[in-house]
């Protein structure tokens, strides 16, 4: 603090400090506190606000725990997000390894460009692209029918569609951390493993994956978090049978008209995501400073 004033002088330092404090207080802290307050209060008509029934309780959170459908959707969102993270990892790992260890500089710069370009494109548009591809009378079904793999069109919309769209949406968040981690692996370690007679799979299992642990953890955590909090993919690629927890939250706000319950659900989602992020990072000893890159 003193350094700030010494470096920039009173006027500038005060401006900087107040901008940052306004941001943190009014945009980061206050909204979250108000959301907690909302989540703990019952949904009352205006006349009863501040009345005897307007007290804090865990009723809204307990409602989620006891309401069968919502609880099932909440749990499904968790494991489906974990599944998205696992699938994205499987899709990305070989390419990350190839880019970090095998590709020539020329191949690498082309590969980086190819993976980054789709991610400059809006998430809604990417999801729209999948919507068109997976449509009932869309190209995928037409091609599969054309080559005789299926007899009748398949309804992709639903869990499968959501999964495909989400893995697609989060590839870059998985690929880059793993690529960065594997890149720092010394090639001579791979050669040593091979010279000692280790088959390819065991070299990966015993040498590459342990080395890339932190990168893999970072990628998985972010993919999980983004998937759990996603709204576009389930809304456009899902079916009524594959609702996502964020859609339930949305309904409390804009269809059910119970903001308190919606706030409680949103708070549950936030706590879940933060817990998963912090625990995973602690377990794999990854520093928050390294993650944000």
């Amino acid at each position, binding site marked *: 603090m003193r350094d700030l004033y010494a470096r920039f002088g009173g006027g500038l330092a005060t401006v900087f400090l107040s901008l940052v404090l306004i941001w943190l207080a009014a945009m980061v802290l206050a909204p979250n506190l108000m959301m907690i307050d909302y989540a703990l209060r019952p949904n009352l008509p205006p006349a009863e606000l501040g009345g005897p029934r307007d007290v804090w309780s865990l009723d809204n959170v307990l409602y989620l725990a006891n309401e069968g459908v919502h609880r099932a959707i909440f749990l499904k969102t968790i494991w489906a997000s974990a599944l998205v993270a696992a699938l994205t990892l499987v899709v990305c790992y070989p390419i990350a390894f190839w880019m970090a260890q095998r590709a020539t500089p020329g191949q690498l710069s082309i590969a980086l460009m190819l993976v980054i370009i789709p991610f*400059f494109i809006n998430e809604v548009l990417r999801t*729209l692209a999948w919507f068109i591809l997976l449509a009932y009378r869309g190209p995928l079904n037409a091609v599969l029918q054309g080559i005789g793999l299926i007899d009748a069109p398949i309804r992709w919309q639903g869990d499968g569609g959501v999964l495909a769209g989400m893995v697609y949406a989060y590839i870059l968040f998985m690929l880059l951390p793993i690529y960065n981690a594997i890149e720092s692996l010394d090639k001579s370690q791979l050669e040593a493993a091979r010279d000692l007679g280790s088959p390819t799979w065991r070299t990966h299992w015993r040498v590459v994956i342990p080395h890339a642990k932190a990168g893999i953890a970072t990628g998985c955590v972010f993919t999980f978090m983004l998937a759990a909090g996603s709204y576009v993919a389930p809304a456009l690629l899902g079916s009524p049978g594959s609702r996502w927890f964020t859609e339930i*939250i949305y309904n409390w706000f804009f269809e059910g008209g119970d903001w308190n319950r919606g706030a409680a659900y949103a708070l549950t989602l936030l706590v879940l*995501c933060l817990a998963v992020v912090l625990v995973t990072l602690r377990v794999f000893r990854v520093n928050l400073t390294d993650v944000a890159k």
Partner: protein
Amino acid sequence: MTTDRIFRGLFVLYLLAFVAYLFAPLVIMGLAAFNESRFPTVIPWQGTTLDWFSAMWADAAMWRSLWTSAIVAVLVVLVALPVGTAAALVLTTLHARARSFAYAVMVSPLLTPGVVIGISTLILWRQVGVGGGIALIVVAQTTFIICYVMLMVMARLQRFDRTQEEAALGLGASKLMVFRRVLLPFLRPALLASGGLAVLQSVENYNTTLFVRGFETPLTVFIATKVRTGLTPAVNALALVIIAATVIGAVAYELARRRQVTRQPRS
């Protein structure tokens, strides 16, 4: 050796499948904009047409949503650049322990799901009677876009040589002048880059915006609504134009950055 060859063959197949996975959806979406079919698809091809582009061009609702997104993006940049820069400067002058705590607080919006940022902003401002709309979209989006600006400015600051400031002070410049004439010009590339990123993040945001939009319809909401209520290839035409603009912008930025690097290799 034969297993090696099989392995390599499989890997090439996987590479091709990966590239197809990345681009097939985008290519199909783009091509469908030229198909006469009322529902956007490429099979069957019912004839090539540019009508969907003119249909898109004539859509007044599309222009309104584009305008909304543009206003929001400009306001977001105007707020996020100064605050993000200030946050980076404050953070770099803090000492170790306070610094890592402040850092955790300041990047926390990046670890918060987008829907939660939208919801908490909506709830807070309802208390003071402000409902969803352009102002709230800007507030909610800047909450986390500031983090990106902060991180990019910090990355640049790490390469700043403080002796330049001392030299300027020694030559009699005021602290304000040192900031304006030494530090700000040094940060310029990072500010331009984060401004570009802020625009991109703002225009493409959906999760957060959805909750605070009120009766406004920014571009992403417009497209998502179209998908559910009446998708025609006009939306594909719009998508194609947006994609072309983003890719051209990204390539131009990358070229400019490379030129900068070759011109002053040591900065």
